[in-house]
Structure formats: C-alpha cells, structure tokens
C-alpha cells in the first residue's frame, strides 16, 4: 500500500505547489492590476490612514495632515483656505488634483526615494509616512496677488525671472480645498458637485489651464521678432490711423481711433509705449507669419512647459496665416491664445537677458525626517531672444510704464518695465485686461502676468485695470527679504 500512498503524497505536494504558484501570481503578478480595479476601495482608504506629507510655501504649511478621531486616522487640512487651493489642489475620498495629485507618490510616502525611511519604519512597525513638498511660492506675494485681484475673474502669475521659480499663482474664482477633504462621503461629493457644475469654473486653474487672447501684450513678441530682424527701437515704422489689410475689405483701427506718432509713421519704441495697433499690424505683415510664429514658439508657444506639476493648456500661435490674419495675430488677436503663465515667461525671459528659465513650482522635497531628498536647480529652457534684443525690449517696456499705457504700474523708486493688453474677445463683452511686466528693470527680481477677465466687469484698458494689480504684486515681491 506504500506505492499508492506515496503517490497520494505526491499529489498533495502538487496541490500545495499549485497554491504556492497561485499565491505568487496573485500577490506579485496580479497585485498591480487588482489594486487599480474600480471596485477596489482599499487604495484610497489605506492612503487616507497614512500621515501624508505637508505642502509648504515659505514657512507656511499650505496642506497638512492632522490626526483625526474618525474612521480614518488623518484629516487633510489646507490652512490657507482658498488662497493656495489652485496650487495644492485637493485630496478627497475619491480623487486628487493639483500638487496633491502630481506629487502624490511622494506625499503618500510611496516614492522610492523614501525607501530608506520606509525600511526603518518596517522594523519599528511604524506607519508609512509621506514626504514634505516645498513649493517656490512666497506667501506675501501670493497674498498680495489674491488681494489685488479680489473677486474679479482672472489670474496672476509671478515668477523669479532669474530662476523660473513661481512666486505666486493666483486664479479667481477659486475654491476652498478643505470643503472637498471632508471624510463624510456625502459632504465631499456634494461639495465637488457644486464646484464642478459652477459655470464660473472655480476648479479651473486659469494661470496654467486657461488660454486667452493676449491682445497687445503679444506686441512684445512681434517687437522681439522685429528687433531680431534688425530693427531698432528708434526706427520709424508705418503707423497709419487705419491699416488696410491685404486681400481684405476689413481695416485694422487703433484703439479708440487714436493717432500714433504723426499719423503716418511712429518710432518702434513709441508705438509700443502707446500700443499702436496699425504699426504692429504692418510690422507683422512685413515680418511675415513664419517669423512671428518661430519667435512665439521660441518663447514656448504651441507646446507646454516641461515638468510643471500642474495641468497645462498650450499657448497657440496658429499656422497658415494670410496677410490679414498675420496683421491681427501680430497684435495678439485672431486665433492667438496664451496662458497667463506663458506671458509671465515671456516677460521673465526679457528680464533675464533673453534666457528663458524653466518654470518650477516645487523647489524641494524632504523626507519624513526633514532630510532634503532633492532640491530643484534652475534650468535654462533656451534663449528666445539675444541679450541685445532683450535690453532693447526692456528699454521699450520701461517707456510703456513711464510714459505709455502702463503708467499705473509705476512704483516709487523702482523702474518698472511692462506692457498692457486689452484683448477683444467677442462683441458685447468687455475686453480682457492684461498687464505683463517686471521690476526692477535694471536688476529684475520679479516678472508678472496679470489678466482680469472681461476687465472685471468694467470697460477699461489693461493699463487701467490690470496694471494696478501687477504693481501690488511686484511691490510685495520686491519687499520680500
């Protein structure tokens, strides 16, 4: 009877081998796809129970996890309320957005760079803890930007032109991420429902995700293309009161029917200072759409900025333009679209002697033990304009603020360079008010782009509505230690 008994033993071992193989297949091979099954609620629960890392701006915690007494061990808090929500995003029972989403692996503690602290945690039987994300935001600048914009719709982006660090990113209307972080399923769902169905799109980060017609701020790019093509700020260019567009019956007028220069020609610098449409329309035609497009693309149009941890829309300079469309595009109309971040990058590049720095929002990552794990070093994206062109553009932009349309951006004791924009976008609505600029002009510390959608409800120019906002943001940035 031993032979069959031995066989039975072998059969048993085969059964156990099958179980062992199956266990490996299940817990290693299949684990990944099982974890992402839509009916698997564990992932979220597990993460809600972890001490998630903080998000920090300056010395302010803008997102943190505090112990809670309910079913999950930690409650996510956003101490800044609505002020930072567009950057931090939210972390709800169901989903995440913003830095909470893009930095999730690090914040939740799953990042491989946190392996060392995980291993020690394994032996001390400690819960996995997340790392801290330190942003480049400066609370004072962020605060000033939010205050200056008020509850008008729009966006403000402030950059350090020398590094590309995002100093402030405000978009309005916004939301309070705390309302979404509720651990009550219904409260969280309801809050999300209200925000996502709101027509004013409070969940949209207008600074990076929304594109607008740039209006006259685009003249900086047209001017850059012209200077690169050999023009000088003092060159006289055609500036009629009305520009007849080629192959079209439409004419391009100046804003409010104003006259530029002597009514026939104007200097390039003066045309920019007073934002002369006909001069730049003609300049665009003379340069051609290809020259404009390649200049715009050198600044980052038709693509997105790499590695930015927030969702982006791409700024667009359209292709295949005829003469009339080129003229309109040269003054930032027709189908030219920009994000506020893109315009901030344009002026930051001019401020930084023509070298464009890669914008970044996360300046440092720290482990749960506060040890620095990685620090962002500024990186050059390219050189869209030469140092000379940048210097000439700076001079021209200074004149915009000292004697042109941007006078409301003047700061006592500081030379400010800037450009206004008043972008038409359909009839019956007030134009968008733009101001882009930097200060101090001779040693730039901050570059800023401001857009107030529909002029904030009042009909007015960028110089009247957006320039004061930019001024306050720049002041706050210059005051910073």
């Amino acid at each position, binding site marked *: *009877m031993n032979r069959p008994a031995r066989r039975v033993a072998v059969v*048993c071992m085969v*059964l156990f081998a*099958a179980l062992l193989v199956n266990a490996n297949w299940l817990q290693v091979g299949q*684990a990944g796809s*099982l974890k992402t099954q839509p*009916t698997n609620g*564990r992932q979220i629960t597990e993460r809600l129970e972890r001490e998630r890392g903080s998000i920090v701006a300056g010395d302010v915690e803008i997102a943190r996890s505090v112990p809670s007494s309910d079913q999950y061990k930690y409650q996510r808090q956003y101490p800044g309320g609505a002020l930072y929500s567009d950057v931090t995003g939210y972390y709800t029972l169901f989903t995440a957005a913003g830095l909470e989403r893009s930095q999730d692996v690090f914040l939740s503690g799953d990042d491989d760079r946190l392996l060392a602290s995980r291993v020690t945690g394994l032996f001390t039987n400690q819960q996995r803890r997340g790392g801290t994300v330190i942003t480049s935001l400066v609370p004072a600048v962020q605060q000033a930007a939010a205050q200056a914009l008020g509850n008008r719709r729009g966006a403000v982006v402030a950059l350090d032109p020398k590094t590309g660090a995002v100093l402030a990113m405000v978009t309005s209307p916004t939301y309070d991420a705390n309302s979404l972080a509720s651990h009550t399923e219904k409260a969280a769902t309801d809050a999300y429902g209200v925000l996502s169905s709101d027509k004013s799109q409070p969940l949209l980060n207008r600074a990076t995700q929304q594109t607008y017609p740039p209006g006259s701020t685009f003249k900086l790019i047209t001017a850059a293309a012209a200077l690169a093509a050999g023009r000088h700020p003092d060159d006289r260019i055609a500036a009629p009161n009305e520009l007849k567009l080629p192959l079209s019956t439409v004419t391009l007028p100046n804003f409010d029917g104003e006259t530029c220069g002597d009514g026939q020609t104007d200097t390039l610098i003066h045309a920019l200072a007073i934002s002369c449409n006909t001069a730049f329309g003609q300049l665009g035609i003379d340069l051609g759409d290809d020259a404009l497009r390649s200049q715009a693309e050198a600044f980052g149009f038709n693509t997105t900025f790499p590695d930015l941890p927030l969702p982006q829309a791409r700024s667009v300079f359209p292709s295949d333009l005829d003469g009339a469309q080129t003229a309109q595009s040269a003054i930032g109309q027709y189908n030219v679209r920009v994000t506020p971040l893109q315009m901030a990058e344009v002026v930051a590049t001019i401020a930084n002697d023509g070298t464009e720095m890669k914008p970044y929002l996360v300046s440092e990552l720290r482990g749960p033990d506060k040890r620095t794990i990685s620090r962002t070093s500024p990186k050059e994206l390219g050189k869209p304009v030469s140092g000379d062109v940048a210097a000439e553009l700076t001079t021209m932009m200074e004149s915009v603020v000292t004697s042109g349309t941007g006078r409301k951006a003047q700061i006592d004791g500081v030379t400010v360079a800037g450009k206004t924009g008043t972008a038409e976008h359909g009839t019956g609505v007030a134009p968008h008010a733009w101001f882009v600029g930097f200060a101090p002009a001779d040693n730039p510390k901050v570059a800023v782009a401001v857009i107030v959608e529909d002029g904030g409800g009042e009909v007015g120019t960028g110089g009247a509505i957006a320039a004061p906002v930019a001024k306050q943001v720049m002041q706050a940035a210059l005051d910073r230690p």
Partner: protein
Amino acid sequence: MTRPPLPLPPLRRPRSADLTATFAGLPLPRDSNLPPYRRRELTLLVYAGVLATSALAALTLADVGQLSLGVLTIGLGFFCLWAMAHIAVRRFAPAADPVLLPVVVALNGLGLVMIYRLDLARSEAAKQAGKHIPPSAAQVQLVWTLLAMIVFVLVLALVRDHRKLARYAYTAGLAGIVGLMLPIVPGIGTSINGARLWLRVGPFSFQPSEVSKILILIFFAAYLVNKRDVLTYGSPTLLGLKIPHARTLGPLLVAWLASLGILVVQNDLGSSLLFFGMFLVVLYVATERVSWILSGLGLFVAGAVLAYPLFGHVQVRVDGWLHAFDGDNPSSTSYQLVQGLYGFAAGGISGTGLGQGHPQKVPFANTDFIMASLGEELGLTGVMAILTMYALLVLRGMRAALGAKDAFGKLLATGLSFTLGLQVFVQVGGVMRLIPLTGLTLPFVSYGGSSIVANAAIIALLLRVSDSARRAPEPPSDAPLFDPGAVSESPTQVVKTT
C-alpha cells in the same frame, strides 16, 4: 504521579529507543536527558510560542504603539496551554513525530492573533458607529483551543492502539452519518450563511460534519482493509484497465451518494468535495487500482454535471469564480471573493504588517477568508510560510502512513493527511480564485470550534499512528482485528442508513 512508566516496546533507533523507553512516563528523573523526539518537539514548540507571541507583540505595537508585559503573559499562557498537549504526547506517544504538534501550534497561534486583530477592528468600527461592541471572537476561539487541546489529550490517552479503532468501525460509521444528518433535525440544526451544517447550543455553534469526517474515515478504512482483496482482484478488464464488479462498486457508489447527499441536504459544496476526495483516495490506496480513481472522477464529473443545473448555489459560485470581475459580479455574487483578492493584492510581498491593513473589509475575514486577512497583513511571505507549514503537516502525516505496519493504520493516516491537505487546497484555492469558492474553514487557523477540535483529533490520531510506526515491529497478534464475517453483509446495511 508516581505511576511507573508504561511498558513500551523498544524503538528502532537504539539511542533514542533507550531514552524514550526509559523516560516515557512522568515525572522525568532530574539527572537525565529528555528523549530526543520530545526534546525536539519542545524546542519547536518554543519556536511556535515565540512566533505567536511576536505576532501578538507586533499587533499590539501597531494598535496602541507600545508593548506591555501582558503580551508576554498571554504568549506564555498560550505556550503553556499547548505544552500540556506536549506533556500528553510525552506520556502517551513518546516515539511520535516531533514536528506535527509544533506546526499545529504555530498555525493556531497565528490564527488566534489574526482573529484577535479582527476583533480589534470590529470593536473599533462599532465604537465609530456608536454601536454596542460585539463579543470577542478570540476569547471564544481560545476556549475552543483549550477544548481542542483537551480532546487531543483524550484521543491520545484513550486510543492507545489505533488498530483497536477498527473494532468500532460500524459504530463509527453510523455515528458519522448520524452526525451528518443532525443539522437538518429541526430545533438543533441552524442554517448559517445559507448552508445548513451547524448545531447551535447557546453561544457555541458546532459543525458535526467535521467530526463525522473522521468517524466515517475510520469506518471506511476498516471496511476496505477487509474488502481489499475483493476490490482489487477478480475484475474484468476493459481497455487494459481492470473494471470493478458491479457488486464491489457498492462502497464507491455509497461514497458518491453520501457526498451528493451532503450537497443536497446541507447545501455545502466544500464538505461534499472533501468527503468524496477522501473516499476516493482511501479506496485507491487500499486497492492500488487507478481504475478506482478514474471511475471515481467519472462519477464526480457526472455528479457535477448533474448538480450544476439543479443547484443555484453551485452556479452562483462557479459564475462568481469564472467571471469574478465581470459586470455587476464584483458587487454581488463575487463580492467576497473579489474583496479577498484585493486583500491579497494589498499585502504584496511583505504585507502591510499586523494591525496595519484592512482585512476587516473582507466578509467572513476570520473564518472562510482568514487566508486573505493573513495574506494582506503578512504578505506573500506569510502566505508561503503558512502553506509550507500545512505541506509539512501533510507530509509528516503521510510519513506516518508509510511507516505504519498495519493496513488500517496506513489507510487511516493517509486518509487523514490527505483530507487535511485537500481541505487546505480547496479552502485556500477557493479564496485565491484557483478553484470555485466553497465554504470550508482553514484547519487550526479559522475561527470556528468544530474545525479546531476535529483537527486536533486528527493530529492526535496521526501522532498515534506515527508513534506505533516508529516502534519496532511487534509479534503479530493472534486475534483478528476485524471480524470479516460481520462485514460481508454490511454494505447493504450502510446503504440503507444513508
């Protein structure tokens, strides 16, 4: 106790033989070494105790953040409980396999810690919801463990020679079948989760089929020892296979009908499968005829084809297995299975650590799905270790069977070991979606009294067989083990009772 040591036949290995023979009884002389088998068992038992205590310590650390002396006290108490079983083995089966008991203790310890861990989760959830905190399952299980240990000792003490069990073959068979029928008796039987296989007395529910399994196996083994020749020889041949006579097919048909009966009456797919597998293997080992296996499998297929359209219960299980993630199944028919799989996935290789996962998300986390709970918190590493422990248990049991010098002992030990292995396979395989899910418990680990008591008895019987196997052969006894005359008319009687 000053009773003189029992007279034991010498062991085959001289060194251990002397020691075992000398010090089998209690108390042990102070100036002597322990018998190596039992000393090994004690060492392994200490390991098992340390394992359970460490598991409890890890859990406590995760739960309250600090350790107290209480953990050590509980661990020591647990060790002492099973040390009594060890002392009983020393006393009643000194030559028995030293690995079986420690493995059982390790599994039982892990199971208890996991059941306690799930208690913590339940009371936490009840506290959150402001509800009454449910009674502790771990405490009940601890009582059952104590009972299991007592049964273990009793079996070892009462069954001094497993061959004597063969004399009670018919009584055992009858008792086993009555046990199977008991749950359908109104008033005593209770239906739990759709399967009617429980007896309920006060707060304790008992599943008599667990015990019936052993009783029926005793009958079956004894019966086959006597009927071997008839079943093995004198069969017509078809296509090179010996086909058993219709008359001798009787026992197989009985087994088949009994299995189907369990399925029909108790609505329990798992037990049905277990019984049938057990019958088949014992029949095969007794006759060495592969044809039995083949015809048995044929009957199984026929039964499956027959049962499938008739039992909605079975269809749901199979559909939930094949289409676990399709359509609405994850939230309806395959909900438990899928939640269990998510538990395994969450565990990964190293597991979340005791007390740090969410095994309570899986329904029946401390009974049918305790393997998913262990898989989540101990990871693949823990699962493989547990499976290896079971494999060790089965192999050691088989070894006892191979060493047994009597046919009945061989059949009994093979049947018991195989049943244990098959139960683990069907149970864990079901939870891991290798095969359709059936309602079985994981021996020694799952919460449930009947399971641990019955399995403790199984281990005691295996130790008994092992003990006799490791001794030198005895002169053959004159008295027949089993009266063949009584058996010849018996199959019809058995059919009648079923």
